[in-house]
């Protein structure tokens, strides 16, 4: 063996986690505003594992990081529709179910839905789920349009309606999938389309309302809605409910509403998964099992106002939240939800291109 070869071998030995005892460290990459304040601290206390916590606000950015490889994360939280392709690309390692006894706490019917994306629930563990709908400032909308269609996608997609709210600020998620799928639903087309002409139609329609949109961003609308800087947003259920809570916590006279439009809204599931090249997979399993503890899962649901897939956790969820059908939809509301299916790569490309053009206003 050459000198260089010997050194390389020695370095590999040092760097290889498989050969050494796994370090007491865990890198988590989660959505912004998506966990309770104590969860991480309590996990660290209970296990002695130091957590390095980092956030993102779009599936696309997460996927870009995963595809680049060597992300260094041990836990990531993709949405199930995105995860399907990522599993195909070999980005995740299989979950060792024996190491996660709390898997039994999860809702079986929900696991079957998620299995459409992740056959046999081999790679992902549901974290939270929610819907993509409309958040709005109740007073400002009423002021500008007393008979505003607040139960309908028309509120944001009808150019004649949304034009009235331009002056108080209109925001949209900066994600092609949520925005275009919602648009297609409003247009009466298949949100999970396979036809490029549908994408074109959505683009054409979005360009009509583009002049009234202040910005595209996937996280800052929470504060802006709570602070009264915007009055209308196409956003995520829990984020908008968080905005409502923040407004009342700060004692502001801002009342925020969240609506699942009557035409139907997209339901999605965010999954905990372990990247194939995660440096600390054992710690990752410990973390997943910890999150699935009923008390922890309940606290997280309370903190972020998204629905927990953990049936045992429901007893720890605030009654008020459980009763809110925009967060925990009742059977009637569930009828209006449509599934978030994985797009073919051609359509995915068409989505992103169309969305880029819409944002540029071309």
């Amino acid at each position: 063996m050459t000198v260089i070869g010997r050194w390389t071998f020695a370095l590999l030995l040092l760097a290889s986690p498989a050969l050494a005892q796994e370090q007491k460290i865990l890198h988590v990459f989660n959505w912004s505003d998506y966990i309770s304040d104590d969860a991480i601290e309590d996990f660290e206390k209970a296990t002695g594992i130091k957590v390095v916590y980092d956030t993102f606000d779009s599936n696309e950015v997460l996927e870009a990081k995963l595809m680049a490889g060597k992300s260094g994360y041990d836990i990531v939280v993709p949405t199930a529709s995105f995860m399907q392709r990522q599993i195909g690309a070999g980005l995740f390692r299989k979950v060792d179910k024996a190491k996660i006894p709390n898997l039994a706490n999860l809702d079986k019917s929900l696991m079957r839905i998620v299995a459409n994306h992740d056959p046999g629930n081999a790679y992902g563990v549901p974290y939270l789920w929610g819907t993509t709908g409309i958040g709005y400032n109740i007073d400002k909308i009423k002021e500008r349009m007393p008979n505003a269609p607040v139960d309908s996608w028309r509120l944001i997609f009808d150019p004649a309606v949304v034009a009235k709210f331009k002056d108080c600020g209109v925001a949209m998620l900066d994600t092609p999938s949520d925005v275009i799928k919602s648009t297609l639903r409003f247009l009466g087309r298949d949100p999970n389309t396979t036809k490029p002409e549908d994408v074109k139609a959505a683009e054409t329609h979005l360009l009509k309302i583009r002049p009234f949109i202040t910005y595209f961003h996937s996280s800052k609308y929470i504060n802006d809605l709570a602070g009264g800087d915007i009055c209308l947003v196409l956003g995520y259920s829990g984020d908008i409910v968080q905005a409502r809570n923040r407004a009342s916590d700060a004692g502001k006279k801002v009342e925020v509403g969240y609506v699942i439009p009557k035409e139907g809204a997209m339901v999605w599931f965010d999954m905990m998964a372990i990247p194939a090249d995660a440096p600390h997979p054992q710690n990752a399993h410990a973390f997943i099992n910890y999150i699935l503890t009923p008390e922890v899962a309940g606290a997280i649901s309370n903190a972020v106002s998204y629905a927990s897939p953990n049936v045992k956790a429901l007893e720890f969820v605030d009654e008020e939240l459980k009763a809110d059908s925009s967060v925990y939809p009742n059977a009637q509301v569930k009828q209006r939800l449509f599934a978030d299916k994985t797009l073919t790569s051609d359509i995915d490309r068409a989505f992103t291109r169309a969305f880029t053009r819409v944002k540029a206003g071309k």
Partner: protein
Amino acid sequence: MSGLLRRLLVGVPATWLLLFFGLPFAFILKVALSQAVVAQPPFTPLFADGRFQGSLANFALLAEDDLYLDAILASLRLAATATVACLALGYPMAWAIAGTKRRWRAPLLALVALPFVTSFLIRVYAWIGLLRPTGFLSETLQSLGLIDGPLALMPSDVAVALGMTYTYLPFMVLPIYASLEKIDPVLAFAAADLGARPGRVFWSITLPLSLPGVLAGSLFVFVPSVGEFVVPELLGGPGTPMIGKVIWQEFFNNRDWPLASALAVVLLALLAWPIARAQRAETATARGLS
């Protein structure tokens, strides 16, 4: 021995260029010729089944969709605006500094460079505080009764040009100062002696002799401005599709590395042209001056 040393020393910039420009660019070019896939890495290999699989499809797509052409034109336009603004502000500054007493020059130049001690991001954020509709400028003008209603200076192209002008101004001032300072003051006396009024002395002697600095400064402002990402991201709206932002979107939102790489290659080709032109002009002037 000294011959070997000399060859080694010549090798340093060559190695530098190879390591920090040649290899990354070769990688970008390779990605630009491949196709996007959902995989790790997210692009197809250039050689598969013993055959070359590369294609110019990504470049064709760039040409087809006027979004990219618009982004390139918008970037060139904003970068040119920032460059002209930097020149208009920076030349008089450099001229004034070069005209002060020698002991004042170093402190004045230090003042020009002073903003660099603060993080670039923080300085751009400060501009947000000044320009946004609920920001300092808008509120002040409103409270003075000069405007009614908030003044939305950002997000806008004007704010982006302003931000880039602010950011890159020192890069314009310093090279112009350096070239002005090098001009022998006796040349101005000679021109005056030959009948040139002060304005004519400036146009026929000072300005042409400071052109190398103007050229270098314009390049230092224009080239990074074209590919600027942070300023349009923070001060620009979604309607400001500068090429740096579009490349970011292609990489992160669209996860399309090949297209993003193709864009980067086009941008580089676009910038290589003025750099090469400037280089030639520089060589020509240097020949005339030494």
